[in-house]
């Protein structure tokens, strides 16, 4: 069946996310860092668990979680520090990773965000072209909704995405206290506005960094 050939190709491409290490950790020198698929797994789990009781369409939310980083098979895992990495700034000063790097005039932020979105949109077109058209359209629609926060699910999931990053940063930071993870904390304080996620972030802070906690 011709459709199955396309599915085999699609799943093979999607499977590459199991091999691609997340750039944010690679750039910081984390040894054996997680893959993009690793991140997607826990993010989807968090979305389900943390999204209960909010009136969200759970199936939509979980599908959105599964497709949110699919584009990175071709677009790569862009990070907010990419410009600084290109200039080699991290080689001279690792503390750049302690600061949120996108401090600039709003027009420049818009340009950067639009450019990233355009690249990723094209990459998603590429990976989904092997799929039946209705399915490909559903995936593209979910991704677009997520990227632009066009639904309650999209708005919530974008926050969960970053909360998962912070949790991973806590884990890596605990394993190696010399790593610089401050930028994740700067961002999450400006991004998370779901009350439960805000509280969860506070709890992570206490869990990993409170002096009275044996984990810290």
């Amino acid at each position, binding site marked *: 069946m011709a459709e199955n050939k396309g599915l085999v190709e699609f799943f093979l491409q999607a499977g590459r996310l199991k091999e691609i290490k997340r750039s944010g950790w690679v750039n910081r020198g984390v040894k054996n860092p997680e893959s993009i698929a690793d991140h997607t797994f826990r993010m989807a789990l968090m979305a389900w668990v943390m999204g209960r009781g909010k009136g969200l369409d759970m199936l939509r939310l979980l599908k959105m979680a599964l497709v949110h980083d699919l584009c990175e098979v071709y677009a790569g895992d862009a990070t*907010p520090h990419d410009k600084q990495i290109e200039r080699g700034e991290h080689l001279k000063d690792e503390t750049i990773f*302690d*600061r*949120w790097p*996108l*401090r*600039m*005039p*709003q027009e420049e*932020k*818009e340009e*950067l*965000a639009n450019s990233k979105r355009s690249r990723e949109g094209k990459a998603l077109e590429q990976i989904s072209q092997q799929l039946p058209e209705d399915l490909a359209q559903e995936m593209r629609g979910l991704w677009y909704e997520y990227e*632009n*926060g066009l639904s*309650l699910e*999209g*708005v919530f999931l*974008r926050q969960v995405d970053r909360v998962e990053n912070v949790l991973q940063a806590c884990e890596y930071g605990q394993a190696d206290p010399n790593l610089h*993870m*401050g930028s994740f*904390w*700067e*961002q999450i*304080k*400006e*991004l*998370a*506005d779901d*009350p439960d996620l*805000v509280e969860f972030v*506070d709890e992570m*802070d206490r869990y*990993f*960094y409170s002096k009275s906690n044996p984990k810290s």
Partner: protein
Amino acid sequence: MDDDRIIKIGSQVVVEANGARDEIVLVAPGTLGQERGYISAATKVGRALLGHREGDTITVSSSFPVVYKIVEVRNGRK
């Protein structure tokens, strides 16, 4: 009292965040776009900024505190 200099939802704000100059817009809760400079009033930073004015300095505390110096507040002014 010059209310035009106080941060509210819709304010465009120039801050120095841990010393780095930045431009943000305070937006209603549930509005997305931190990477574009939109900060929801329900975030930790949004809540801390609301009601403050030019010249104020606020600290959003945690194990990784961020200090925001409010440089300029624009409320619909050219």
